[in-house]
């Protein structure tokens, strides 16, 4: 069963790669935000997996819960930021720099 969790974990990790690509390439900031949000959820899944592998889910579940609760705050703050700043005043969200 542990092996399964390890493979499942690796699978989730591999699925992070497209997200990382999205984060790196953009093109807009909001794309990146979405990808970050998804990575946040994946992290809490991975934490539970790691807990299962170690056989101590009772320990790991607490901060998986923290992640689930707090990941929201980051996304919300970014969304609020975009809401609050005038589009013409800010660094253009529409640009693909780099």
């Amino acid at each position: 069963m542990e092996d399964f969790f390890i493979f499942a974990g690796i699978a989730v990790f591999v699925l992070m790669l497209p997200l990382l690509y999205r984060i790196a390439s953009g093109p807009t900031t909001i794309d990146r935000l979405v990808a970050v949000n998804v990575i946040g959820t994946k992290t809490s899944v991975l934490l539970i997996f790691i807990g299962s592998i170690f056989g101590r889910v009772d320990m790991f579940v607490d901060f998986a819960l923290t992640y689930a609760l707090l990941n929201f705050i980051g996304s919300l703050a970014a969304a609020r930021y975009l809401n609050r700043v005038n589009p013409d005043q800010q660094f253009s969200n529409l640009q693909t720099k780099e």
Partner: protein
Amino acid sequence: MILNIICITLVSLGILFFIGGALGILRFPDYYTRMHAAGKGDTMSILLIFGGIALYQMHEVTVANALVAGKILFIAAFIMLTSPTSTHALMRAGYEEGIRPWTRKTKKGQSDS
């Protein structure tokens, strides 16, 4: 044993949804569609995975394990609650910023913005 099989099935299904979400984020043409894939796919897959693991916890039925399983389900519930909300907030931010949704008719050069 049966528990394990159920668990494996559920988790595998969850990962399948993850794959969908990841593909969506990778391949979809614009940001609304990507967000769509991510929000929907992830919420579903997390529900499945956490359900599977919660079940897996119950291979020995004790109070402590039940507590842990409950917590895991709680996490799933919270993610179900927060993930759409944050998707909504981000979507709204993008919409108010004036990003127009992608349609097939626009040229490729504009589709990315």
